């Protein structure tokens, strides 16, 4: 299992860097990835698309991507724009890890 923490804003300026960090992890099968967004104040449209692309890539390789520590505002935006349908989210990384271990994610 891999835990990655993102902090700051995930937007047009940072999404390429984030993508470079995350993409190598998607190369192998059965990856269990927790993205901790506790320190992340804003995710733009491009940022959400990166997360969705990573989740789809992983699930096509028997992997899982879950999100933890989302702020209420980010959660809200994801709900209004339909991105929430594609992610399991957890209040913090501990809960995310526990759920994955139990096979509940």
């Amino acid at each position, binding site marked *: 299992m891999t835990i990655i923490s993102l902090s700051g804003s995930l937007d047009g300026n940072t999404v390429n860097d984030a993508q470079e960090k995350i993409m190598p992890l998607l190369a192998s099968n059965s990856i269990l990835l927790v993205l901790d967004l506790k320190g992340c104040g804003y995710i733009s449209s491009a940022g959400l698309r990166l997360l969705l692309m990573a989740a789809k890539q992983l699930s096509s390789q028997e992997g899982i991507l879950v999100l933890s520590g989302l702020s209420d505002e980010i959660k809200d935006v994801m709900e209004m724009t*339909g991105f929430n349908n594609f992610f399991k989210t957890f209040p913090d990384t501990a809960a995310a890890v526990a759920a994955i271990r139990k096979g509940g994610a």
Partner: protein
Amino acid sequence: MFRVDLHPTHVSEDGKFKLRVGKPLPFGASIVPGGVNFSVYSHAATSCKLALFNKHEPKPFCVISFKDEFRIGNVFTMVVFDLDYENLEYGFYMDGPFNEREGHRFDKTKVLMDPYAKSIGGRDIWGKTPDWNDIYQHRARICFDDFDWENDHPLETPVEDLIIYEMHVRGFTQNPSSGVKHPGTFAGIKEKIPYLKELGVTCVELMPIHEFDEFENSRISPATGKMLMNYWGYSNVGFFAPKAGFAATGKFGMQTDECKTLIRELHKNGIEVILDVVFNHTAEGNEKGPYISYKGIDNKTYYLLTPDGYYYNFSGCGNTLNCNNPIVRNMILDCLRYWAADYHVDGFRFDLASILGRDMNGAPMHSPPLLETLAFDPILGKCKLIAEAWDAGGLYQVGCFPAWGRWAEWNGKYRDDLRKFLKGEPGSLGAMAQRLQGSPDLYSMEGRGATASINFITAHDGFTLYDMVSYNGKHNEANGENNSDGGNDNYSWNCGAEGDTKDAGIKWLRTKQMKNAVAMLLVSQGTPMILAGDEMANTQWGNNNAYCQDNEISWIDWSLFKKNRELFEFFRKMIAFRKAHPVLRSSGHFKNRDYMHSGFADITWHGQEAWNVDWSAESRSLAFMLCGMHAKGGTVDDNSVYVAMNMHWEMRGFRMPKLPDYMAWHVFANTDAQSPFDIWEPGKEVKLDNQNEFLVGPRSVVILVAKDK
């Protein structure tokens, strides 16, 4: 696979950006490998430049000329590489002749929005005062077109099975009484889906959601001192972009995702989406109006112009879109295809659609190519096409809109005839009989049927249902035009006092009249449309033209839901009744004969005596029976339904047709009865003791169902 066209061939003048000749189609800005493909048409421009802005910034950070080799025919196209397209806004500078008589109005100093912009900034948050010094007010943006629709598909509900609910995106939930988290937005409507399901409507018709400028012609009302705005939005800035100010996420530029999510969730709940589209004019007004896009890109192509080069005004809004110019026709087609394919929209209602049938000189055409193209288009093949079959230039085509068996119409005659009958005007029986049958007098020609008729009593134009039974005349003073705006032919009746009253008798009668109206609407053949809020007796205090009122006048007051629960229940059960009985939802017209050998013709007419209608001018009593064995042309079995309408101010006895011995009449609704005995859940109707005659109260409707004893 290695692609050669990933490699730039040119650089911009300042050396900052790498370029390559673009693809002329599709028009607009498209994300391509490595960059963005820009393409814009102008037949008269001599040169074109692309202006690139960072979001919200006053000046472009780069201006790039389209080189000669980047022009293909009359299209300027190039690929710009390595753009941060999430933070980008783009526009065009166009140079060309300025010659009013010739119809050219080029001004190379103006930044012009892309007519094909899929996302438009500049009015990101509804009502936020714009910076009027900004040289670029409505800013084209790049749009991701990768929305994940999961398994969604337009619902393709047969049009006769729809129950349409017309709403304004902002007005539906903006009032704090709505209780939603994000009032006045697409997300707000999404929160109200459980409410829509409870009511039972199967389609929402959204008043314009294309990007418009709520500040267009904004002013202070001399009557109230309040700000008047372009609230309804029948004035397009762009045809391809959803209104950012209608999205709670518009401030993040995510309005396209929010709008699509709403449509996806509505579909999941069995509710279709029809868009009210405005192709008759744009927000650029006449020669005094602003340059937004079309005027500066190719004025002569986009607008109908007089021989002197001035703007024809068939829309009543300053200009008229040149709909049957081949270029504009294609733009409209591209636009509708885009909303059908990329937004999964189920249909369109065309505002002032008769303009779409005018030729390039403004004359009405016999067989307008645009309307024909839309009727036969493969991508729009399952979309509902609904015309508002008139325009502000005097064309009135209800019943004769060119249809090719595809176009339905807002049936304005239905509205007027039902209102006359409802208020007890003499001589209104004959017309009402036509309206109840899906208006065969209007729609029996050329393979049309009941499905050509969108039946409605109220719509955004005109009184709400409550106001229709509470006001004799319009009260539009707040609009600041001395009550001279808005229609005068309301056929309304206040039931005894103008406006709100404490008189219990008047209040009772008003509620009953609203129930009568919706009962008649939902037992009529054709497709019913309800104005949002009517089910809870929403009022605009007599304002019948609230286009500029961004306030409590036009925001639905949800506190009325509790107060008028009785009316809501009546609506809900009437809708459920219509859904339960296919006999109410024929696609064709009645044949007026017993082709199923049931002993009854498909429809039979009755009066105070069965089989005997008094059609004279002073008669206000009419009843009809729909034979259940003839439901949907005899293809499905249903109960027979009998409806007695007494719009006289005195009680009348109606004798019902005699049923076979094993059947009995059961009462489903009686608007003269006190709630909850005014209407039953479909299937729980109560058997009548007297199977021969029913006393129908003054100004009342009774609905009976024939069921086995």
